[in-house]
């Protein structure tokens, strides 16, 4: 495949087109997309995939601009997948993350792609996993996946990355509730942003709140300790501690085989999801616009049959 070769050569336009292909909702593109990913997965690069999530307004993009610039100045090659939540149901989306990434986007060593989440709750869009395969094969050192954290979505985002980072703002004590509920299960690093100006005091208080909340969390054996870091994106302070922590955790996880186990688990999760998706779309085709369904629904309302009769009927039909 010509596209495979070009992606492996880090050809910017081809990487972009490859991502478009895997994100396409047109079934016709599916076959080509499968071929592409099947080839690229045999040319793994050395990317470390880092997830950044957090509630709206904590400065995720601003942090990525600041941290990313720091990495690029150290000659790392960096790809960013920004999943933009700002879509409304009837219209299209406004993808505004890049307005906060004006410096980093100038660098030839970056590749920044925004994707509308199309209202999918996960914050992760269809094709994000495939996109990170493409970027890994294209030779980036780091792949950042930025998602908005709302409730459940972190689990999905965490399933795509090697390290998962939660960004919070000063005074975000409300989320401490979340910590107890198990956010710690999948977040490796907590970054308290906006440690600057008037907010400094509040930021360090928030950090110590997080630290003490984490102390209730019982660490399993051979698991890296979870870290709470204080940074200021606008003053570019604390970025060295972020990269050091990432490197240490990766080193620890590789040493303890956690790194590979995670990737294996993610792969089997992906396979399961792929099966589910395929069943789903076939099922949708089967039942989606069926007048039979409508008729049977009417019969349910009239009390002639039960809803389970209907579901069993369609399932039988599907499995035949």
């Amino acid at each position: 495949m010509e596209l495979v070769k070009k992606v492996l050569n880090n050809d910017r336009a081809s990487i972009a087109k490859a991502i478009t292909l895997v994100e396409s909702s047109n079934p016709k593109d599916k076959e080509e997309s499968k071929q592409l990913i099947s080839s690229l997965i045999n040319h793994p690069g050395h990317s470390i995939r880092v997830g950044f999530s957090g509630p709206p307004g904590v400065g995720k993009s601003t942090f990525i601009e600041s941290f990313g610039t720091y990495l690029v100045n150290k000659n790392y090659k960096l790809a960013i997948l920004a999943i933009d939540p700002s879509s409304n149901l009837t219209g299209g989306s406004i993808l505004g993350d890049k307005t906060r990434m004006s410096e980093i986007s100038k660098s030839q060593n970056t590749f920044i792609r925004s994707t509308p989440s199309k209202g999918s709750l996960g914050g992760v869009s269809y094709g994000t996993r495939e996109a990170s395969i493409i970027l890994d094969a294209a030779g980036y050192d780091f792949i950042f996946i930025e998602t908005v954290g709302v409730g459940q979505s972190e689990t999905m985002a965490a399933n795509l990355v090697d390290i998962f980072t939660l960004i919070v703002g000063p005074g975000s004590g409300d989320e401490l509730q979340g910590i107890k509920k198990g956010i710690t299960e999948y977040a490796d690093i907590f970054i308290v942003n906006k440690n600057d100006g008037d907010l400094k005091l509040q930021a360090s208080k928030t950090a110590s709140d997080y630290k003490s909340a984490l102390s209730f969390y019982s660490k399993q054996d051979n698991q890296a300790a979870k870290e709470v870091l204080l940074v200021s994106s606008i003053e570019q302070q604390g970025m060295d501690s972020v990269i050091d922590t990432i490197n240490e955790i990766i080193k620890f996880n590789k040493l303890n085989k956690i790194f590979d186990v995670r990737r294996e688990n993610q792969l089997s999760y992906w396979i399961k999801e792929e099966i589910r998706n395929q069943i789903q779309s076939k099922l949708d085709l089967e039942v989606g616009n069926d007048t039979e369904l409508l008729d049977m629904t009417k019969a349910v309302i009239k009390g002639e049959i039960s809803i389970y009769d209907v579901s069993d009927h369609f399932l039988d039909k599907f499995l035949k």
Partner: protein
Amino acid sequence: MDKKNDNNDQLTDWKKKFEAETKTSSTDDIIINTDEGIGIKPLYIEEDIKNLNFVDVESLPGYEPYTRGPKASMYVNRPWTIRQYAGFSTAEESNNFYRKNLEAGQKGLSVAFDLPTHRGYDSDDEIVMGDVGKAGVAIDSVEDMKILFDGIPLDQMSVSMTMNGAVLPILASFIVAGEEQGVAVKDLSGTIQNDILKEFMVRNTYIYPPDPSMRIVADIIEYTSKEMPKFNSISISGYHMQEAGADNVLELAYTLADGIEYVRAALSKGLDIDDFAPRLSFFFAIGTDFFMEIAKLRAARTLWYKIMTDFGAKNEKSLTLRTHCQTSGVSLTEKDPYNNIVRTSYEALSAVLGGTQSLHTNSFDEAIALPTEFSARIARNTQLILQNETGVTNTVDPLAGSYFIEKITDEVASKAWEIIQEVEELGGMTKAVNAGIPKLKIEESATKKQAKIDSGDRVVVGVNKFQNPKEPKIDVLVIDNEKVREDQIKKINLLKGSRDNQKLEKSLNELTEDAKNGNNLLYSAVKAIKNRATIGEVSKALENVFGRHYATSVGVSGVYGKYFEGNEEFMHVTKKIQDFEKSYGRRPRVLVVKMGQDGHDRGAKIVATSFADIGFDIDMGPLFQSPKDVAKDAVENDVHAIGVSTLAAGHKTLVPELMNSLKEQDPENKIIVFVGGIIPEQDYDFLYEKNISAIFGPGSNIIESAEKVIDLISDKNNQ
């Protein structure tokens, strides 16, 4: 029967007559809701002006609350100052233009600087290649400033300078130019805009982040209060808010809230309120909503009096709001441009009836290009005719006592006061601006206005109704931007070759130190400028400490689409987009950008939010991007189209560069490029030759534009 009952009977009777004439069941059906959310009734009576909140209908001009004017005699004694804002190309060319205007009857000067100067870059900086000398005059050092005022005695001429970002080096250059002309600092008169808060909200020609920027504002207020008694330290501006789409109440409220914030900044310097408040001045836009604009100016004085009294001001000059006005630029249309003369005339009359102290009238061609000598003359004559032929100067505040005017003055004041209180609750304007609230409210208002025009709710003559089948061609001023840049670079090199570098370095270091230790920066800026530092060098010395500010904002969504629920045209385009999505597996994707140093992003924001509502996926680029950065962004996101918004005459250099960069970064790209904004028709062919697919001038209908874009994208991808 007494008179009162008589009147009541007449009112009841009038209602019946009115309902019969208009064939409505109630006079309440005829209430017109303005953008400000004020219901305009068909009739106002004495009852309406009883129990007003702010206005005292019996007060006189020159007396509190100064609703009727800051002075007792107003125009009877001296008419408003005709102050035309102008500047372009080099200092030599602008100087020549100023001198001609002064001979022709203009009274004050108002300098427009080019965008690189605003943003603190010298003309030889790579980053500003496309912007030098456009939309204003290029000033790189005190040498340019001296040429700009050559033959214009600065002890007699009051000079207004629109400068906010690079305010320190520019004001310092003005001071040094005066000194070297033999004029003492204390004798300089005029105004510097120095209003940074609105830059963060709408105009985007800032340099540093909000906090250090506010400190610079306070430094200038402090300096001028001590050294320049005849100079207005700030011009608190609502103008650009209205231009960006704010309604009159938003404009008024945020402007006065800005004023409050500046007063606090100055007080924090330990100044007494009456030391500086007499030199605070204001600047409002006057649009086509004739009576509302008059009410706004009257309400502004009324509220400012209240605000300053609350601050404990005693001096009458502190208590009175004095303002400059400019007719609205966004009300001008590219279509049938001579109509703009008429619009501007009404707006000018409105400003005068509102009691402005000085006025700029726009030239009719400003929706297309910079004014020519011809259009500038008509603009100036619009005011000369008002002053000399119409008799409007014979009576002070002639509309006072009108039930209608007094009532809406009070309503505007009341609504604005509510918003001011909201800002106060947020902790003042700097905090509100940091939180992005005013910007969002203004964007929402702008999008609503655009939707009203596109849906035909609001008539714009020659644009969405009464179109001229034979559009006239008009001459425009062309700036040879390359030549200006070359000339400026020569002058910079000459300056750099002849100055004492040791002295220069020392003064620049001093400036950096003062930025750290909190000393008033204007004193050290004056020293550096005297030692022939360039504008860029002074700005950089401060940037080393303060950093540069980058804006972060996303548009509103859903506001535009709401106006078109069930609209056939709208659905028609939406359908096309859905079809496209089915065929190509994703929505059509458009990158909307501004390039160069032009920060006016109202147009870009409106296109982004309305296109998204119609169904496009919109990538918003950051401000101040180079064509190369835009191309990278477009390629990485595999967009179908790029929409370039340009208002500052940069299209002739920046757009071709973008096309080259695109070709370079993706030789096989199918990206459609379209351009919107202020582009003279003379340049259309040039742009089409560079493979631009479509050009949308001011007043373009968004839905029609969106349809054209989706058609172009579909065609290109079908090939």
